[in-house]
């Protein structure tokens, strides 16, 4: 899977060098690597997301999470959770964004929280939990954030949720 067309078209050197270490460490658990200039996307198996995160933080030096997103793919019966990770401390990495993604089954959407690795992901994870229904196991406070207190519908960003009048 790592032989994506992008890798054939001579990907940017600096970015691919960063990814090589990760693929060497996780081996076959890295499902997909997509390298564009300044943007790296790494899709891993959901059970290895914590190992990948620890590697990206400790070895590569990306120190904060810019966003946590969830994308619903009802055709595949899967949810994708994506962490966009960036760096402040190391000035040479500041223009890079690493996207760490994992696909989890829609029926049992559970993934370990990364708040203990990056505390900056706390509120984004909470929002993803209520908006798309991904349960982050071990999150310190997995509660409702933006939706009203009496919300009793399915999470609104699931594809089967239809806005009123649509």
């Amino acid at each position, binding site marked *: 899977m790592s032989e994506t067309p992008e890798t054939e078209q001579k990907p940017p050197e600096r970015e691919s060098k960063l990814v090589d270490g990760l693929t060497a460490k996780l081996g076959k658990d890295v499902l997909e690597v997509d390298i564009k200039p300044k943007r790296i996307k790494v899709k891993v198996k959901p059970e290895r997301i914590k190992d990948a995160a620890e590697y990206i933080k400790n070895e590569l030096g990306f120190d904060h999470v810019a966003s946590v997103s969830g994308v619903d793919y009802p055709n595949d019966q899967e949810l994708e959770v994506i962490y966009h990770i960036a760096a402040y401390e190391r000035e040479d990495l500041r223009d890079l964004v690493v996207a760490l993604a994992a696909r989890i089954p829609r029926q049992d959407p559970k993934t370990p929280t990364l708040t203990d690795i990056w505390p900056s992901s706390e509120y984004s994870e909470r929002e993803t939990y209520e908006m798309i229904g991904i349960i982050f196991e071990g999150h310190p406070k997995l509660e409702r954030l*933006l*939706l*009203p207190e009496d919300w009793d519908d399915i999470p609104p*960003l699931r594809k089967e949720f239809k806005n009123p009048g649509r």
Partner: protein
Amino acid sequence: MSTLSISVGPQHPGSGHFRIMVKLDGDRIVEALPDPGYVHRGEEKLAEYRNYIQNIPHFERPIVHDSSNILFAYVSAVEDLMKLEVPERGQYIRVVMAELNRIIAHLYYMAIYGIFVGHSTMFMWPMGDRELFIDVAQMISGQRVTFAFLLPGGVRNDMPEGVKERAEKACDYFEKRLVEYEKIFINNPLFERRTRGMGVLTKQDAIRLGVVGPTLRASGVKADLRKDEPYAVYDKLDFDIPVSQDGDSWARAWVHMEEMRQSMAIIRQALKDMPSGPVKLNLRGQIRAPSGETFARTEASRGALSFYLVSNGGMMPYRVRLITPSFRNMIAIPHILKGLLLADLPPAFWGLDYWPVEADR
């Protein structure tokens, strides 16, 4: 220890449309938890029902007084997917609009800060001077706050005659005013007593919590996407990034002030260097982004703002994730308010430049 819980907001002069659940021991804050969501409008879901052009007015509503900067990130994301190259004049006009918006938003911040510390003159002066820059932006775009001026592939129209003179006149005037602002506000002993040492965020904490924008730069991290990942023509322009090492509310106000100076320098240079030529690409028919995904970010007035756009090749985006600087700075609220007196909550809180509409989306 018995504590008292009070909720500051959503109807409170010191909160706006936002609530902070504060736990007090006597007059000391022992815990402050943010409770957002009073302006949550479901932008991300609505974007899936609208095509790429219809989304433009939608995405500037979260930050109406900083509308060009948020659209900058959105159109960069769409252009990145469609592989469009914007004409150079269009890019210069975008930068002018973005910097005008930065000044407008920063002046709004200064004005509200004046109210929060009980300094009425500091409300009136920035609110009045703000109108000058609104006038320039209005000349270019025809609107007071929601310009909807940036489109995928360029900007909506070219600048009319006389913008350069008007903008330079406004900058000349405002540079003199900034000196007076420093005298009556930033270096005012009363303001210093209210804000020095309040809401301190150290450099390590700022990096750990991932805060953005002036809050980050006030804590001593010299990070600005205009320099670190130059988009549009920012790499051709000469400007500084003000950084303070103090990390308190005063330093945040100071950083805002200095950034306005730099923005004016950028506007002057951009207006001077602007080449002639077309301002937009002629895109015919419906805009359709090819399937794929992209992550675009810009430095809005409050900090790094990012769009994560997933397209499946249809007329409408498959998924849009919008992360705004206020949402990212919200994590600092419990951190900086802890240990302060209740009376110091408004100045310390507003130092973050937290705008609830932007955070809730």
